[in-house]
């Protein structure tokens, strides 16, 4: 397996003109518009994957924390979706949704679903029983308990899930280049096809930079919304 990949990489490198520089800066300035456009597409697809995934996963997790019997089927379904390889998923959807955005968005959402469901549920489950009991004993209604106690206390773990889902979505979006909707992945594909290193390097560097920036932003968000977690030494649970 690894041997085959290395052979391919060697073949690719052999076909590149040895005088070709790794990055042609003129290409970057000539293609600025496209880089920005691809970047927006990448951002858009990532947001769709994480936001839609969260909108589905969050109520699922709340339901599961209230009614334990939901846990099994919900974990099973999201688990099965997670095991389908991205490329296979896209080709399975092609006859149904064609070359549309949906064909790309559905697998991305499906992957974030499992991560977000599991983390949200783990976060809700990790809320101290004593805190919940005291809250009920003081007269919180069950809705107040959820929104004022359980969700805020689960936030560090929920945000940890969002970080993982976001970073993996950013990586997966590049695969959608196969359908011409891959954001920065498009440049990677283009570079490989044309034995031209510049777009390949641009695609890789920008994808990675995007993932790092998104992760840092989420860390910042967590610090901002859970000032108490630092002192409490709250454990974050990652799936």
């Amino acid at each position, binding site marked *: 397996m690894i041997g085959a990949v290395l052979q391919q990489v060697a073949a690719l490198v052999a076909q590149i003109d040895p005088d070709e520089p790794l990055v042609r800066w003129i290409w970057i300035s000539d293609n600025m518009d496209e880089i920005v456009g691809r970047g927006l597409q990448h951002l858009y697809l990532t947001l769709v994957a994480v936001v839609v995934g969260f909108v589905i996963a969050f109520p699922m997790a709340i339901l599961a924390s209230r009614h334990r019997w939901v846990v099994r089927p919900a974990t099973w379904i999201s688990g099965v979706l997670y095991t389908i390889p991205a490329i296979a998923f896209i080709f399975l959807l092609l006859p149904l949704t064609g070359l549309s955005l949906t064909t790309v968005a559905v697998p991305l959402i499906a992957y974030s679903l499992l991560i977000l469901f599991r983390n949200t549920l783990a976060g809700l489950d990790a809320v*101290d029983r*004593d*805190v*919940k*009991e*005291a*809250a*009920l*004993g*003081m*007269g*919180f*209604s069950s809705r*107040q308990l959820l929104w004022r*106690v359980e969700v*805020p*206390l689960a936030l560090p773990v929920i945000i940890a899930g969002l970080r993982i889902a976001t970073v993996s979505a950013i990586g997966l979006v590049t695969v959608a280049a196969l359908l011409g909707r891959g954001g920065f992945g498009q440049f990677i594909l283009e570079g490989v096809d044309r034995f031209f290193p510049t777009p390949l390097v641009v695609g890789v560097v920008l994808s990675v930079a995007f993932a790092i920036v998104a992760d840092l932003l989420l860390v910042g968000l967590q610090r901002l919304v*859970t*000032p*108490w*977690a630092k*002192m*409490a*030494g*709250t454990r974050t649970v990652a799936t």
Partner: protein
Amino acid sequence: MAMISLQQIEKRYPGTSAPAVRALSLDIEEGETVALVGPSGCGKTTTLKMINRLIEPTGGVLLLQGTDVLQRDPVELRRGIGYVIQHTGLMPHRTIRQNMATVPTLLGWDDTRAAQRVEELTEIFDLDPELLDRYPAELSGGQRQRVGVARALAADPPVMLMDEPFAAVDPIVRARLQDQFLDIQERLKKTIVFVTHDVDEAIKLSDRIAILNVGGVLEQFAPAEEILREPANDFVREFVGAERGLKRLALIKVGDIPLEAGPVVAPSATAEEARAAIEAGGFDFVSVVIDGELLGWIDRDMLDGATTVSDTTPRPFNAYVTARDSLRQALDAIVTSRSGVAVVATHGQHYKGILTLERISKEIIS
């Protein structure tokens, strides 16, 4: 009318043959502190939680201020009852100030009123105002526990329920918290029901103790002194454990029992009179008292060469007890003193008399 009345209360959990609590009846009067104690499985926590409906009784009637709790909305009911648990259950994501204002906020008090109440509680519980803007994780166990009790009293509920309130802190802190609790309760006169597995805590804090046996069977419900003096049966006798006599002594104040006058001389007395007083008293000393004020003690050796008592320098008593001390403290003073007797005086050193080992053991036997 009893503040809280449990009438033939029963709790059965589905799928279990024996009820957790069966036919339990208890009347708790306004302003009294009642401890529920018993071995694990006796249903003491279940009983407590049935009062605020965290657990629903499956039989019987539970009246709070004359109304059936099952007829009331549980959320609204709980807002009117203070609730304290062992590990405090403070909300980690809320500051101490916000934690203390929890129930007032739920009740919709305006911010000024809630803030004012937090200030009051801070004072009552002798909390450092600097702690108010911290998070619970930044406080010590003892501080958190005090905040837990303060929070339960925030909306000034007439009734407070406490589930092992001081069990999670170390013994020294626990003793301090218990003393503070007694002080505050003396002022606020709440109706308090608390669960503990610690008989000594029950004796120290409660007006009456309900001793429960496995399955929520009430074995005895009486003031601590009575339970120690006359345990209703072998179960109670065994449960309150060894040192029943000593525990009772802790409940009786020195001022509650008649004192002996003891050997006393005035400084103007002659050495001869002083020697006679020592002889008559049966001890090896005599107290020197002038106009009711205790100057100290002298013995035979100190009288050598003296004509009157005023020629001597009476030595101060290392330990004396006051009328407000317990007989247990008096006993400690007796066994640690050289003379084998406790001298009773006020803090202003007004001589009251003496307490002997014989007198105390008479108290234990009675």
